[in-house]
């Protein structure tokens, strides 16, 4: 086609998006990377400190705690969120009456602001005022577990709340995949006497391989964005034991104002997140090739 566009028009049309995007997304990456090699603190003169921040990080126990907690959330998301979301999608794609409405209801937590989700769950998980311990007391269990605020359970509780918020989202993606399956294959299998469980194991799950890949990629990306839940539920405490990578980076940067170290943590969050997503992507590709 030959309706002439001049380069000037092209430049004018693309300029606003290019400018804002470059200034607010690309330049900040370079900025963070640069300052991660300095001892910038906003007060004294900034000097170039090479890899000091990264060395400091390797020796910082809180960093490793935050990495482990992020790993806990990732593990629970992969081992529970994805299978449960899938099973729920199978359940709600069958002949349950009103399953459309149920799917919409289960999706509801996904549209609630994560910071509000955190506040809501305080009233369920808090050891003193929370519903769970009130319930345990009512049925005569004397134990009083510190679901949040204690030294051990917090990351698991945060992972569970994350699961609660995301399950409707995961369900929806699986449901869309299930809907696309050719119906005649399942019908034929049903007529040949395959049980529901066999159909699931030998037909639906293998045919949904690509959907599983997409969900895994989305969940892996999502886990590295968990921040508000930590902020609201525990504030990273006590003594940073429930910090995730992002919340610890936020604490170092904005509370202690060690900007150089904070930027080094931000760079590591970026790199670890990108590596995890990259690994998922490669895994998906390899599995697709095998099939």
């Amino acid at each position, binding site marked *: 086609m030959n309706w002439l566009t001049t380069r000037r028009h092209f430049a004018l*049309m693309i300029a606003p998006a290019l400018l804002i995007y470059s*200034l607010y*997304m690309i330049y900040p990456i370079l900025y963070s990377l640069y300052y991660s090699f300095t001892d910038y603190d906003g007060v004294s003169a900034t000097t170039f400190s090479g890899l000091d921040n990264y060395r400091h990080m390797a020796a910082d126990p809180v960093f490793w705690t935050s990495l482990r907690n992020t790993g806990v959330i990732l593990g629970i998301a992969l081992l529970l969120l994805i299978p449960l979301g899938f099973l729920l999608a199978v359940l*709600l794609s069958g*002949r349950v009456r009103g399953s459309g409405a149920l799917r919409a209801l289960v999706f509801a937590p996904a549209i609630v*602001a994560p910071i*509000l989700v955190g506040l809501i769950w305080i009233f*369920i998980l808090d050891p003193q005022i929370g519903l769970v311990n009130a319930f345990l007391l009512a049925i005569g269990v004397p134990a009083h577990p510190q679901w949040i605020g204690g030294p051990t359970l917090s990351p698991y509780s945060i992972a569970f709340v994350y699961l609660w918020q995301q399950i409707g989202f995961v369900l929806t993606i699986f449901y*869309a995949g299930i809907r696309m399956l050719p119906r005649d294959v399942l019908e034929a299998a049903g007529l040949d006497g395959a049980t529901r469980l066999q159909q699931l194991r030998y037909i639906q799950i293998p045919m949904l391989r690509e959907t599983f890949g*997409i969900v895994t990629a989305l969940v892996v990306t999502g886990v590295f964005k968990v921040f508000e839940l930590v902020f609201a539920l525990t504030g990273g405490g006590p003594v940073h034991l429930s910090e995730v990578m992002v919340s610890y980076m936020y604490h170092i940067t904005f509370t202690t104002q060690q900007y150089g170290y904070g930027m080094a943590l931000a760079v590591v969050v970026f790199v670890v997140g990108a590596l995890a997503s990259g690994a998922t992507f490669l895994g998906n590709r390899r599995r697709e090739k095998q099939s």
Partner: protein
Amino acid sequence: MSTDTSPRPATTGPLPTPDRVGGATPRTSRRRSRGVIVASAVAYLITFVILFPLLWIVLLSFQTNDNILAHPFSLSDLTLANYQQALETLNLLVMYKNTLILAVISVTVGLVISYLAAFALTRMVFRKGGRRTQNALRYYFLAGLAIPVYILLFPVYRIDIALGLFGTYFALILPYIAITIPFNILLLTGFLRDFPDEIEQAAVMDGVGLWRMAWQVTFPLMRPVVATLAILNVIYVWNEFPFAVTLINDPTLTTVSLGISQFQGVYSVDYGAMMASATLVLLPQLVIYAAFQKQVIAGMTAGAVR
């Protein structure tokens, strides 16, 4: 993410055939119907359990503080006092106003400039070359999909101060626009690439200029995608917290999310009022969701679902 460049919202897919298998014998159909009843019971129970935390907050918002601590399930002495307290303490109107302004401006401007860029990247044809530049720039934009917002917080804070934007709506509007550009461009270029040349060729014959081509010929046909993106972007801005907490220190600019994060400080141990405030934020959102749930779900899963 899906690697397909032309993702479609879930609702546009072919509808499945009705879920009926013909020819079942009476015996198996009875067994099946019992299976359906069990499955239904399980499904309803699970849905109730998932929704329970939301219902719990609403119930607590009508309880006195004594009851919240001692008998949270008690249905006597329900009270509206918490709401009175919440409305007196909280500047809900300011929170809503600020968030609405941010959402309307950043989503509108973001979509307009994303559309212009996407149009330039896919529909423009040059006398010679240009295709390579267009592709390279498209990938430059798509790279943003891999950038987590958290690495941007401090640099953006510094940029806002340097540009004298700190303390204004634009401190948030600009990063919100920037964050939404990559996905807007992913979806828009995906659709624009499949756009048939014939319509534009006919328009050229009629002497339509570039600007009218973009807005009056092509744009109207992009409306479904733009609507999907608008919903997705509004939800993002509405719920956004990390930038808001970093870039706002003026109470008159408080957004809904930022306001929620301050409830614990504001109310201390007045749990009833805290829950009433939470309900006042939660319910409008759920009502809007109920009204537009198909579009909301399609918007939030766009790109993942084809």
